[in-house]
């Protein structure tokens, strides 16, 4: 589904990604871990098409096509979803209007008719229930005045509405208490199928108790320095990242 080869990316002349390689297949869950400043969020942003970052080298193939050629909205319509680490507040744009526009723009991209108001509201109701999103929140402006946890839950709600093929969840667990974490993880698990894939970016192993990864990768200094299964995450939780940094230095 996704194939990243030797990806390099800059922001304002600083190289953040220094040669990332990653293969993600349908049905898989990948976790990307790593210390602060290792480039995890940059990788997520580059995949979603943020123009702030400049790709200087490497290739990204998604469903057989060159992903880097596509605009952010085309990537979204092709099934890529970025769950933001810091979801943006957009005063004045209602959640309903936002989601309706997004769903129908994506349908238009696929050559489908826009959803009727009735069908749309029905879809909203279903998906709200899935992530236990408060109806009052759905009637407000996008993320405006939402608590940290509500914002994250809202990300998963949007994911449920848009039914992406590849979800990249950037630190979705940060700022969540254990109950909220369970709800978010539960949402992700319910949406999981053999057709779609999930990349979970996280600091802590805690989230991975609820979203069980098939693969765990460690990103350090802009590249993946170690990959393994879920046991790697447990090891990292116990030992921290220093032993890996040393290993990397030794090479």
């Amino acid at each position, binding site marked *: 589904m996704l194939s990243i080869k030797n990806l390099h990316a800059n922001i304002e002349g600083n190289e953040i990604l220094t040669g990332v390689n990653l293969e993600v297949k349908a049905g898989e869950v990948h976790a990307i871990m790593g210390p602060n400043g290792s480039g995890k969020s940059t990788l997520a942003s580059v995949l979603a098409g943020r123009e702030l970052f400049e790709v200087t080298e490497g290739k990204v193939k998604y469903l057989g096509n060159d992903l880097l050629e596509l605009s952010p909205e085309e990537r979204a319509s092709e099934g890529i979803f970025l769950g*933001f680490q810091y979801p943006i507040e957009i005063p004045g744009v209602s959640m309903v209007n936002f989601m309706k526009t*997004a769903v129908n723009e994506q349908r238009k991209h696929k050559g489908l008719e826009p959803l009727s108001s009735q069908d749309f509201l029905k879809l909203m109701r279903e998906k709200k229930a899935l992530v236990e999103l408060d109806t009052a929140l759905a009637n407000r402006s996008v993320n405006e005045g939402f608590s940290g946890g509500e914002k994250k839950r809202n990300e998963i709600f949007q994911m449920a509405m848009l039914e992406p093929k590849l979800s990249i969840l950037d630190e979705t667990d940060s700022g969540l208490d254990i109950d909220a974490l369970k709800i978010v993880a539960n949402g992700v698990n319910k949406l999981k199928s053999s057709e779609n894939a999930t990349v979970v970016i996280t600091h802590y192993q805690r989230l991975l108790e609820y979203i069980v990864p098939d693969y765990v990768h460690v990103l350090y200094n802009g590249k993946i320095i170690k990959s393994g299964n879920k046991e790697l995450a447990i090891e990292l939780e116990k030992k921290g990242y220093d032993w890996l940094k040393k290993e990397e230095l030794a090479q």
Partner: protein
Amino acid sequence: MSLDTVKIETKDKFIELYQENKELIQNDSPDYINEIRNNAFEQFKNLGFPDKKSEKYKYTDLDKEFNNGYRTYLSPKNIKFQINDIFRCDVPELNTKVILLLNGWYYDRENLINELPNGAIVGSLQAAAKLYPEIFRKHFASYADVENEGMVALNTAFAQDGVFVFVPKGVIIEKPIQIINILMDEEEGLTQHRNLFVLEENSQASIVVCDHTLSTPNFLTNSVSEFYIGQNAHFDFSRMQNEHNGSKQVSHLYFQQERNSYVNANTISLHGGLIRNNVNVLLNGEGCENNTYGLYLTDKGQHIDNYVHMDHAFPNCTSNQLFKGVLDDFATGVFNGKVLVRKDAQKTQAFQANNNILLTDDNDMNTKPQLEIYADDVKCSHGATVGQLDEDALFYLRARGINKKESKLLLMYAFANDVIKTIQVPALKERIQDLVDKRLRGELSRCNSCQMHCC
């Protein structure tokens, strides 16, 4: 051989015009009005047009705009049209009785005055001045600043007609009264109409004003409106400016609010070549509330200049000002707002904000929010921003599959909606939301059912 050219000052042209047509101008006004007129004319001779040295008109050169050959309408021009053919406003909830001013003159010459059963009066200013001298002596030219404002003096000297609305003590007019200013002629014209709105104590009314141009020639407007809002009175005012790019208008609104009165005033500027709006508010008693809001959407070479003077003369009053604008192409804008809190106006709450989005590098916005406070127990704030669309928000929307153009529209619309949502007539609010959406999309911003080709 070169021709000798004598530069005639703009001011002198109007002095001459007045002197030559004095009889015609004064013909239909009672003596006491003509006395006010003559005084104003003398003031105008002293004051002239504000030039760029004037701090208030630093970025808008009116002398230049008025130095043209536009004809002044000294009497109503007989332009016959079937109003229903070109104008049909289907916004529900509005009074079906629409007041029309054609080039500054009350259009319905057969029914110049309407006295409603509850004692309210709606009609032509010229006719009303003859019929209701007590009201006029008390209120006419009592609030507008003829002493210091050349443009107001000019209007007071020349103005013959306009709209008069009187709401007596305790009367509530449920449905908003709609006033349409139509500019339509085969040649260029200058109108200087005058409106007077008097709401006595405990009364309530709502006015909706729409400015439209219906023909292509250039127009110039210099209008003055005075509003007296009595004790405990409640007044809602919405104005939509939708004239073509060849039109230029200067408007002056003067509000005097008495104790515990409430005013909500919105100006939505959709189109116009040059717009200068002056809003002057005197809070002349304790416990007043005034909300003055503005939204302007400009593009091409349009110029918008909003000036607000909020005078807190008594304690315990609240005022809110919010002006927001989106500038595109090479449009330019000005906001100049002042809140004056006088020494005795303790417990004043005054807020003022001006936010602008510039869509191109060629836009120019000058904003100057000012507070002048002489009381020591007040809560005041002011601020201004000039910026671009929020890149983070734009990316967030695009990352959900909404294309760039649509994402920008959503953000601009949300920005504008802060002002639109303060409009208190629900049906009008919806209509303006629709018009603003169309305007931002670059579509013709007129109501579907209306045949007016405003822009």
